[in-house]
């Protein structure tokens, strides 16, 4: 009964089969594997070694696999971020900055760099501001000139208009003058009469 219980485990069955002197037991249980695998234990590996051709294996061992560096093949173009690239020829491992001196040197370097950057930025901004102001002044001047020119032309136009209106007035004056003259001419006879009446010296007497 004991071997039937242990059959479930392969190893135990092997050991049991090997240890048991009765081959019938295994056949009774209906398990052929342990008995078949057990017999040619030493033979199978030797057969495999002999059966398979050794030529291929030997060749594979002989063929050397070259690395890309050994062959001198140019490297493929790959995108590597700027921060990730590490300089060649340097020792592996990190150099830590923990002492005060090295930190202060780095600090002063960075501060100087930043100050320079800010100064240059400010200078640039000032220069740009100056240029802008100059441009603005120029534009203002141009605008003023344009306005002045416009005013001038306006004045000229006004003057011309005045002249033209003035000439019209003259014409009227002339007409008035003419009228006066005419009136004077018309009234002239009367005036003459009046004058004759008044001037007794210039009397005309008809000879009888």
């Amino acid at each position, binding site marked *: 009964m004991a071997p039937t219980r242990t059959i479930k485990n392969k190893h135990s069955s092997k050991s049991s089969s090997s240890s048991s002197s009765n081959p019938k037991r295994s056949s009774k249980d209906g398990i052929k594997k342990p008995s078949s695998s057990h017999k040619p234990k030493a033979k199978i590996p030797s057969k495999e070694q002999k059966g398979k051709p050794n030529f291929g294996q030997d060749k594979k061992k002989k063929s050397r696999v070259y690395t890309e560096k050994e062959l001198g093949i140019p490297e493929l173009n790959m995108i590597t971020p700027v921060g990730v690239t590490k300089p060649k020829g340097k020792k592996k491992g990190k150099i830590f900055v923990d002492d005060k001196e090295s930190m202060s040197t780095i*600090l002063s370097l960075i501060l100087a760099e930043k100050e320079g950057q800010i100064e240059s*930025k400010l200078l640039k901004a000032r220069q740009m501001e100056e240029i802008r102001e100059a441009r603005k002044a120029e534009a203002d001047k141009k605008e003023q000139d344009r306005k002045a020119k416009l005013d001038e032309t306006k004045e000229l136009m006004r003057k011309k208009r005045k002249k033209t209106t003035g000439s019209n007035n003259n014409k009227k004056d002339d007409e008035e003058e003419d009228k006066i003259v005419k009136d004077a001419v018309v009234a002239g006879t009367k005036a003459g009469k009046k004058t004759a009446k008044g001037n007794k010296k210039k009397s005309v007497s008809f000879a009888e």
Partner: protein
Amino acid sequence: MRALTDEEMKTVLDKLANYMSDLKSLIAPLDDGDRYVFRLNHSRVYYVKLSIANLATSISRDALLSLGTCLGKLTKTGKFRLHITALPILAQGARHKIWIKENGAQPFLYGSNVVKAHVGRWSEDCPEHQGCVVYSMADIPLGFGVTARSTTEARRLDPTGVVCFRQADCGEYLRDEDTLFAG
């Protein structure tokens, strides 16, 4: 947790120098003989007292959540990104400042840029694209950003024009609560 390397230290200090003029006070020795150092853990940079940093060496990397003041995060491309947690340190030695009116504080704390209409006053001679710390009119630091225009240019700007691009604000303590300290 480890000290920063040469390159890392440069990038961190370079970023800090955008906002601060007085960097030397950061590493100046304290009265009790102690000093502040920079430490890196899980790609986060911490500004911490040396004595505390030494104590923290007894805690394993995975178990150590945070120590001192978290300044920001080193990205995988080697750049440094400042977090809002660095604001108290930036505010101490700010290079350029912008004070915003009460009506502008809320929009800023909700994550919008600073417009000219909200500016109460600003420091003179501030160039374009320069780091600045944003304060309320009661001198309480609210966040930090980058100037959109120089001071002279900003004077001519219309009221709705952006004066400062927001980088971080105190509202992030609530908005980014989950990712601010871990993850």
